[in-house]
Every structure is written in C-alpha cells, then in structure tokens.
C-alpha cells in the first residue's frame, strides 16, 4: 500500500546520523503531513511551519525511534501535537512531543479521522502518480479541475481524440495499478464514467 513507504535501512541510517534519510522522509511524507496539518489549523503558513518543524523534531529525536513504523507514528504525532498546541484555546492542555505514544493518534477521535482521511487521500494520489504524465494531466484536469474535453484540448494542446485516448488509457493503467488493493477507486471511476 502507498502508505508503507519503503526507505532502505531507514532506522539504521537515522541512528547513524545519515542526514540524507531525512530528505527521503521529506519526500515521502511532506505532502500528507501538510494536508493533515492544514485540516487541523486551516492556515497555510502555520501548517507549513508545523510540518517543517516536525522533520526537525524527528531528526533531533531520532534515537528515540526504535521501530521502523515508529517513524511514521512520530511524524504524525509531532504534527498533531504542534497543531493542537497552536489551537490550544480549545484544548487547555499543552501537548508535548515526548508523548510519543501511538495512542496519541487515536486519543482524539476527531483528529484520528483526519489522519485516516489523510492516509486514504495519500493512497489515491499515489496511485494517480503512477500514471504517465499525459494521462495524469488529463485525469487531473477532467476530474479535479472539472474542465470539459474542449478546455482540456486547449490547455494541453491536444486533439479531442488524444484527450479521449489519454483518459481511457489513464483508467486502464489505474485499474491495473489498483487491482491489488484500492478497489474502491476502481469502483468510483467506473461509476463516474458509466
């Protein structure tokens, strides 16, 4: 699944102070963490600040992470705590990053749902990114931007036939990619097209 990010020797590299692993982690997690933070604080600048800080905290606290999946938990918990601290008018308690228990993630059901949503979106988005660039563009413009075929032709400089071809190829590729796990996306795409 897309949310199990595969970074070779992740823990070893973290513990050996190999800073390049931070770069890999940033690539793997910045998008979803930013979405997660934004869903809590509803402010671009604050969310960016929080997420940047999360990676700094991970680096500073890298020896405290003992398990590979603990890295992901750490990132979510640190982001969550920073957001809650920012919103602390409604939460009297300050949340500290040493409370790195995974239970921190489920403790607040509302936040937990945001996390699940984030991971779901990450899954779908990841599947989309496996598509060739042209198909990706066509998919994004038609489904996410809601452009008409004609508008897509203009935007991408493609003929209507090429747009149709790319759209159906996008679907076909997505189906192949998603066959193993993300059944529902397949389902909704079928639905949308029929």
């Amino acid at each position, binding site marked *: 699944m897309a949310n199990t990010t595969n970074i070779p020797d992740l823990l070893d590299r973290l513990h050996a102070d190999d800073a390049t692993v931070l770069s890999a982690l940033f690539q793997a997690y910045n998008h979803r963490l930013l979405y997660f933070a934004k869903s809590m604080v509803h402010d671009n600048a604050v969310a960016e600040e929080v997420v940047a800080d999360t990676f700094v905290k991970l680096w500073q606290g890298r020896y405290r992470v003992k398990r590979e999946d603990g890295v992901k938990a750490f990132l979510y918990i640190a982001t969550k705590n920073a957001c809650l601290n920012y919103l602390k008018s409604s939460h009297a308690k300050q949340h500290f990053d040493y409370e790195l228990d995974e239970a921190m993630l489920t403790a607040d*059901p509302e936040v937990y749902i945001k996390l*699940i949503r984030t991971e779901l979106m990450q899954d779908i988005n990841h599947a989309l990114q496996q598509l060739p660039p042209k198909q990706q563009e066509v998919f994004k413009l038609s489904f996410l931007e809601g452009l008409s075929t004609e508008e897509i032709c203009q935007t991408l400089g493609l003929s209507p036939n090429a747009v149709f071809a790319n759209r159906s190829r996008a679907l076909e590729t997505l189906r192949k990619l998603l066959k193993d796990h993300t059944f529902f996306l397949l389902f909704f795409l079928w639905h949308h097209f029929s």
Partner: protein
Amino acid sequence: MLYLPIETMMNTLKQTEHIIALLHQYLAGILNEAEQEALRSYVKDYPALNILLEELTDEDVLLEKLKDFENVYSDGKEATQQRMLEMINQRLQKPPVIKSIYSKWWPRWAAAAMILFALSFWGIKQYQHDTRAITDKRLQQAAKIYGGNNQAVLTLANGQSIRLLPDRKGIETQGKEVRYQDGTPLTSSEEWSDHYTLHTPIGAQYQLTLADGTRVWLNAASSITYPQQFQGKERQVTIEGEVYFEVAKNIEKPFIVCSEGQEIEVLGTSFNVKAYTDEKTTRTALFDGSVKIKHLGTNGKMIDALLLRPGYEAYLQDKKLTQQRTDLNEAKAWRQGNFYFADTPFDEMIKQLQRWYGIEVIYRNKIPVDTFRGGMSRTLDLLTVLDFLKGSDISFELVDKKLYIN
C-alpha cells in the same frame, strides 16, 4: 484525553491500516460478514468514522477532498516544498543536507556541470573569447572585478602591523629575522617578536616558511599565529580560514595545528585545513603520511579523535568528527590559482567567490540548493566566472560589488 495502557497502543498504526483497508473494501462493496462486523465495531469505537463513510460514498465530496489534497501546496508544489526545506535546513543549523528533490533540475545542472568541466582551466580562454560579445554589454556597465590584489599583513606581538608587498609571494623566518622569500629583509633584529600573526585579507593569498622549515600557504581571509622559534616539546600554530601545510619532518617534536574545536597532530606530512568560522564544517584533507585529528570541547578537553588516511578528508561538523574519501583536487586547486568545485553546495561556492572578489552577496529569494562541479582560473574577472555559474534557475545581477542572486 484518553490514556490507554501501553500494550494496547502498540498497534495503533496497524489498526489504522486495517480501517483503511476495510474502507476501501466497503466502498467497493466487497466486505464479507466478518469484515462488516469489524468495521461496525470500529465505527462504535470511533463514531466520527461515520462522517468519513458518508464523505467517501458521495463521489463529488470525494473528488473535492482529492482536489484539496492535490492543492495542499499554497504556492505550488515546488515553491512550497522549497520553502519548507529551507526552514528545515535553517533549523537544523547546517549546510543543506537536503538536496532539491525536483528531478527536472538535475538534467539542467548536469548540463551546466558538464560545460563547467569541459571548459575548466585550459579551455577557459576559448570560452572567454566566444562569450565576449554576449557579456560585453554588462562588462561596460560594471567595472571588472578581479581577486588577488590585496596585501597580506604581518602583526607582531606588540600589535605593530606590517603591510607585506604583494609581489613577493611569501615570507620566511630566518633566525630572529623575518624576511621575504627572495631575501629582502623585512624586520631587523631590534624589531623581533616572539610570535607573529600573518593575515590575508579577502582576495589575497600568501606563503610563509616557519623556523623549522615547514611551509605554509594561506588562502584568502585566513590567518596563522606562530612563534619565532619552536620551543618545548611541540611545534604549535593556531589558524583560522584555509591553510595548506607541508610540515617538515621531526619525529621528536610533533607539529600541532589548532583551530576552533579541533587540533591536528602530525609528525611530517602535507595537508589542507579549511576552518573558516563562517562555515559550519572544518575540513582537513590529507595528501600523504598520516595525521591525527582531535575534536576538542569548549573546555579544551578531547571529545573524539581519528587517524586520517591519505586521500581522505576529515569533517568536523555539529560536534561530530568523521572522515571519507575525497577529491584532493579541491583542496589543492586554490594554491594553483584555481577554483575547483566538487559537488560544492551553492552557498559554499558563493562564499569562495566572496572571499576572493570581496563582494557582498544578497539573496533575493532563498539560497539555491544546487551543487556545482568543475573548475576555473581565479585570475578571471568575476563576471566571467558568474557566466559559468548562471543556470536557468539562478540569475545574477552585479551592482557596485553587490551581487544579487535571484
């Protein structure tokens, strides 16, 4: 706030993954009895899951959420990620360890690097000729800026400073006298001092021969404090900036180079130390023999040490001492009158230019995270050098010795 015993918390992420898998299957309408029951019990634990379920079954809402996810970067993906990386690097207080993740930059820079490499050193004249027409306009506007015009200064123990003649290349200690390497006297025996500081300003380099015959090269904006004669059991000097040593062999009397947080101990060998206080890393590159590098705490006590091997470079950064194989051309180039970049980060490269051309640097945006490879002569004027470094993503503007980077 809900607190659970540790054992039950261990698998929260596993649980999250399980819920997500169930949601996928729910939406695809392929949940079996047991799975339906599992999802129902999750909904009981987390009633808010109902909101999510509703959301996911409404296609328009789902597309809307996907759009939000897609558009999470406020200034576009590149600019926003760049800004965050900048924040991270800044807060980690170290040179950019995180390289740009935009692969499309790489081919451009690879091309730029190849051009740099191909035109390095001997090829430079041809290039200069070819680009003269292009750069002429700007050259007329801005006077050419060259490095290498400044004078080194020798300071005596009593604080008296002597400006050294730039055309003499170097000085040496001969008995109690200091003189130019061509034999011209500099101080008479009445003026002798028990120690000296030789300092090079921006844009200058200078040579020095110590009382024991050790030869020293100072790069720009560097200094060395050394005694008239080496007394006692050790030969000790203190440096700042970039200095190359060819240490005269004397097994009885180890030669010690002190810089901020570091001590290098050698018997006889040649090595290059780069210990600028405005850079985060102290680098020591070894050409032959072996040297011992010690990392010292603020109290002067040794924290860590390593034996450096020839062809390797020691890095002291963030109080950590490491060594790795290196391209010795980089440590050697400046003495041969060249710039040489071996995957050098942008800001480090700019610092070299600052120290040589005496320019002020103003970043209009963030510091680019690119690295550079290649070399060129330090006798070139600044604009010519900048022409090499210009890329499609970076542009330079030079106004009155102020370099603006866009």
